[in-house]
């Protein structure tokens, strides 16, 4: 979306020197461990590949409206390990996912029961790097019930957990998410607490959990605040993601934040930790992430050829010339 500097609604007009310039990121690679590509276009995939994103995790989530039958869930999970994975590979981006029942839809108990029955068929699939995103939204009894059941499933499957923390009553909700995880015998290093902010970060880190931050305009974190958090808390167990979805969000949030950190004097090593390495360490505990798959995206199948052409390297999908009104 284009921001017009004269728009009175725009609280932060573009400052000189901070126009999008990712040249400083040259030779860096990024891992966005939370992004809902189902809701994004091929233009996004192309831009992400160009900006250095080599791998992503797509957590199972709420699609913007409630599903009414079990087959909708089955087809959704199946698309995360099928079509979306293939679509991503066409742009040279390695696609992983986490599988789970999101908190909102946990409130439809009848359906939630059925979802719990099919989850075991999906969590052991190749490239499933965790149970997620699960946790609390309204913090209802039903949400609590299915959060707990899925923590048990994660423990059984020895998979990390990607925990969504609520927008409302966030501090309480975050505390409670961690308490319950410990109560169910999960080790803090197997749990990634997502959507942190200045209010929650200290506690999450002190208790040994991973702290993920979502750079999402207007509603979650801005990346200037993110830089301040890195300055204050360092880089250990801190992860940055975009959580880009069907809302006004930014699939380039991770590389943009890396560029901003560089401008603000954060070291290259530290930038690499929070935009790449830490996510791999955290979700790699699933045993499902091989870095050598990133550069070739051939981990899916060594003999793989992509739809309609025989490319094996990323970023080589045919391009459309966006500067022309001619479409061939």
């Amino acid at each position, binding site marked *: 979306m284009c921001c017009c500097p004269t728009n009175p609604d725009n609280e932060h007009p573009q400052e000189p020197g901070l126009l999008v310039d990712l040249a400083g990121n040259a030779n860096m690679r990024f891992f966005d461990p939370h992004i809902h590509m189902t809701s994004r276009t091929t233009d996004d995939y192309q831009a992400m590949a160009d900006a250095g994103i080599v791998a992503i995790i797509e957590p199972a989530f709420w699609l913007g409206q409630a599903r009414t039958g079990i087959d909708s869930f089955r087809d959704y999970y199946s698309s995360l390990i099928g079509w979306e994975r293939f679509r991503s590979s066409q742009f040279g981006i390695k696609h992983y996912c986490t599988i789970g029942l999101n908190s909102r839809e946990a409130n439809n108990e009848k359906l939630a029961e059925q979802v719990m029955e099919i989850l075991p068929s999906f969590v052991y699939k190749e490239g499933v790097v965790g149970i997620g995103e699960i946790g609390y939204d309204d913090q209802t009894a039903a949400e609590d019930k299915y959060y707990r059941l899925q923590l048990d499933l994660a423990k059984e499957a020895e998979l990390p957990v990607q925990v969504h923390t609520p927008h409302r009553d966030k501090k309480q909700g975050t505390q409670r998410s961690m308490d319950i995880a410990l109560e169910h015998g999960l080790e803090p290093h197997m749990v990634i607490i997502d959507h942190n902010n200045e209010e929650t970060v200290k506690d999450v880190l002190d208790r040994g959990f991973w702290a993920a931050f979502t750079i999402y305009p207007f509603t979650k974190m801005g990346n200037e605040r993110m830089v301040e958090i890195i300055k204050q808390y360092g880089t250990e167990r801190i992860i940055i993601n975009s959580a880009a979805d069907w809302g006004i969000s930014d699939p380039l949030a991770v590389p943009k934040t890396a560029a901003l950190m560089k401008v603000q004097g954060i070291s290259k090593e530290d930038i690499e930790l929070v935009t790449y390495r830490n996510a791999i360490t955290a979700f790699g505990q699933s045993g499902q992430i091989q870095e050598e798959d990133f550069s070739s995206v051939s*981990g899916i199948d060594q003999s793989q*050829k992509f*739809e309609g052409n025989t490319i094996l390297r990323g970023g080589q999908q045919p391009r459309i010339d966006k500067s022309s009104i001619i479409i061939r």
Partner: protein
Amino acid sequence: MEDKGKLLRSLLVPIIKRQVPTVTFNWLEEKSKLINEESGTSVLNASFSAVPRKAGRAITDISQSEIDQIVEQFNGFMIEGWAIDRVCRLYLVASINSDENIYSEKVEGLFRDAEMNELSALYSFLPVLHYPESWILRTAEGIRSNIGTVLEAIMYQNSYPFQYLPEPSWNQLVLKAFFTDKDVNRIVGLDERANKPLASVLVDYAHERQAAHRTVNPQLWRLVCKFIDEKNISDIEKLFEDAHITERRAAVLACYHSNYEPARRLVEKEPAILEDVKSNKLNWSSL
């Protein structure tokens, strides 16, 4: 059916044993036994998914005599070039021991919940799945996929479509192969199943491409040559005027294999190419 499964497993054992650690092979054996005995699908579904984390995904080292043995015992079935996870998955599927309805339900369940690699694996198993008539609709559905690897699993080195697909589905497969730039030389039975409706659809497809100023895969004429007639001979005549040698070669090949007299006479336009065709220096596979 159980005998066929047993035979296939016994042929796979030395290949798998050589490729994976003993602990992985023991795991596979144990799951195979349980799958063989279970009435439900819980062991089958979970172990089928878990194979790559146990066995890895390296390309399998298979000797020529092992390939030949399987080809001979299983009607041309080819596992050459497969990754080890696919071979192990075949081993598990070959362990299913149920009567027709239950067997079909179990395998269909694997298809339904499959991720991308599993789906490709399952389609490549088509020639050795029991009750072959049960997989016709499933295969037609696979041809509708837009996932390249899935299409290739059905199209390449796979004798099932050739043997079992009804003509409309077969034609869909061939058309889609051209549409998605596949190597049609690897489609089993391509020439044997050439037919008039397919030739006519392919000629239309060629016209569409030409109207859009796009190239036409010259292999397409291979499926038209037996059906050249007064309606489409002008397409072949145009090929002889093409600046590219490959198109002119395709033109000579098409006319050489045609039974339509006016087409057969056209070969004289390219005597040098004709010589290569006559001496088999040039054929459709080498084109």
